[in-house]
């Protein structure tokens, strides 16, 4: 069945996906809000930059990250200076890579949720005496709930399945940076199909259960709404 290193890969993968989604929701909210509301002329520049990970081969992202996270890269030197040490081939490095890789999957659903809410409810709230933050928390956040749900699921699932970026900057170190997708690849390379089956099957089941939970919850909310 599962070897110890398979189980570790499992837990690293889940931890990576959870931490990544958490960070993305926090930094994605202001970014998506800004994109949805700004009238800045060059907003398209930022939008294009956010969407880049959608089209770039993961190995390209991984390559650049590897260089900048390494001891001679800009981020690497900064982290060295701060006494954290180089980030390449560490879990923190994986998180940084995943955050960049999955950014559009979180920002875009949030941005479209904010856009579809529109100005009207916020303007009404303002005339009823609600200040900026009050409006965001009492009106925008609850109305954007389906958007947050989609963003979280997409971000989580996308991080769960990433391969190229992780391979480049994580280095596939069992017990430290080896995630599920790479572990499966290793098993297949070694012609150990039975282990690969176990891992792939459980990932399939886990993903399906997660989606089922989310859609089920969304429906329950819908029924409460009516």
């Amino acid at each position: 069945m599962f070897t110890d290193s398979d189980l570790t890969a499992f837990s690293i993968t889940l931890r990576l996906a959870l931490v990544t989604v958490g960070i993305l929701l926090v930094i994605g909210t202001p970014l998506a809000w800004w994109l949805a509301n700004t009238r800045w002329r060059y907003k398209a520049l930022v939008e294009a930059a956010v969407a880049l990970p959608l089209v770039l081969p993961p190995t390209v992202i991984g390559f650049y990250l590897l260089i900048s996270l390494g001891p001679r890269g800009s981020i690497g030197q900064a982290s060295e200076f701060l006494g954290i040490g180089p980030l390449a081939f560490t879990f923190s490095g994986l998180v940084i890579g995943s955050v960049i890789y999955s950014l559009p999957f979180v920002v875009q659903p949030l941005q479209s949720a904010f856009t579809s809410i529109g100005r009207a409810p916020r303007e009404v709230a303002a005339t009823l005496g609600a200040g900026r933050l009050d409006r965001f928390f009492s009106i925008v956040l609850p109305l954007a709930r389906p958007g947050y749900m989609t963003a979280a699921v997409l971000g989580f699932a996308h991080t769960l399945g990433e391969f190229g970026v992780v391979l480049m900057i994580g280095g596939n170190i069992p017990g430290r940076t080896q995630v599920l997708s790479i572990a499966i690849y290793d098993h297949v390379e070694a012609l150990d199909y039975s282990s690969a089956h176990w891992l792939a099957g459980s990932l399939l089941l886990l993903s399906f259960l997660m989606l089922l939970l989310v859609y089920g919850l969304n429906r329950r909310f819908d029924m409460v709404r009516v």
Partner: protein
Amino acid sequence: MSIEVSVKVRKDDFVLDAAFSVPASGVTAVFGRSGCGKSTLLRTLAGLESAQPGGRIVVNGVPWLQDGKSMPTHQRRVAYVFQEPTLFTHMNVRRNLEYGLKRNGRNEGRARFDEIVSLLGVGGFLERRPDTLSGGERQRVAIARALLSAPQLLLMDEPLAALDMHSKHDILPFLDRLCAESRIPVLYVSHSPEEVVRLAEHLIVMEQGSVLEEGPLQQVLGRIDSPLARADDAFSVLTCAIAEPDGPCGLSVLRTAAGESMYVPRIHDIHGTIRLKVDARDVSLCLERPVGSSILNVLAAEIVSLSEADAKGQILVQLQLPRSGENLLARISEYSAQQLSLTPGGKIFAQIKAIALLS
């Protein structure tokens, strides 16, 4: 107490340049064609649109915009009813209503809540979600919610325009009551003469971003040089007392300020005074009081002025009724005016063929 406004707003190609001062009580209608800047004016008053430097908005002595300092919307004690009823869809009706109540910083609580809920008749669906309500019901909730925020100025931007006929009739009586009972000044944007005449006491007429005319309703309506009078459907408004609600043959008898009787179809459930809308084309003129005419309503009046003839050879005659000084407009042909040799200052009898009852 008054509302003083002098603002300039630039929006792409459109420029709003409005200055006026209206009493801080009763209903002031802002009237004009679509695209004349009515909504922009209201949005600027609410602080949702930013004015050019040098603008000034003072409401009951509180500067909302002055010396380049603009108070943010949520601090202005303003409430806004939009054309599309915009309820918060993630809250039920009760929580929608409480949203403004909680934030108005006054502890009026329960009593005020119950009063306004019953004023707008929304008590029956407090626990319902907004998406289960009809358009008219939603707009009533939106109006109640606006009132509960304890505003010093209520802005209403064509609150009936997005509603179907049925919902309109459903909501008008509530607006009547609101306008009659509320102590809050209301600025009511509309392009419907019926609504304006029914609800407003004061009138601002706008055209292409600027204020054309402004003053008490009847004064503005009675002028033959106003754009309202130039329109085909020029009309004037008379106020009458109800003398005999149950008159002969299904009629009610009204009394003008000068003591003349007016006959209208039977009126129900209205007491005291009533407003009548009289279209200028339904008024004809006679030098003598007509005898043996089927037209019941004849009023003695004095000619104030006559307009130039329009393309169809018709002129507008501005009349003034004795005692009340109310203006009445008559549209007649230029030829008749010459035949009767009408001149300002002359005595005349106005025959009124049809009357619309307002409130």
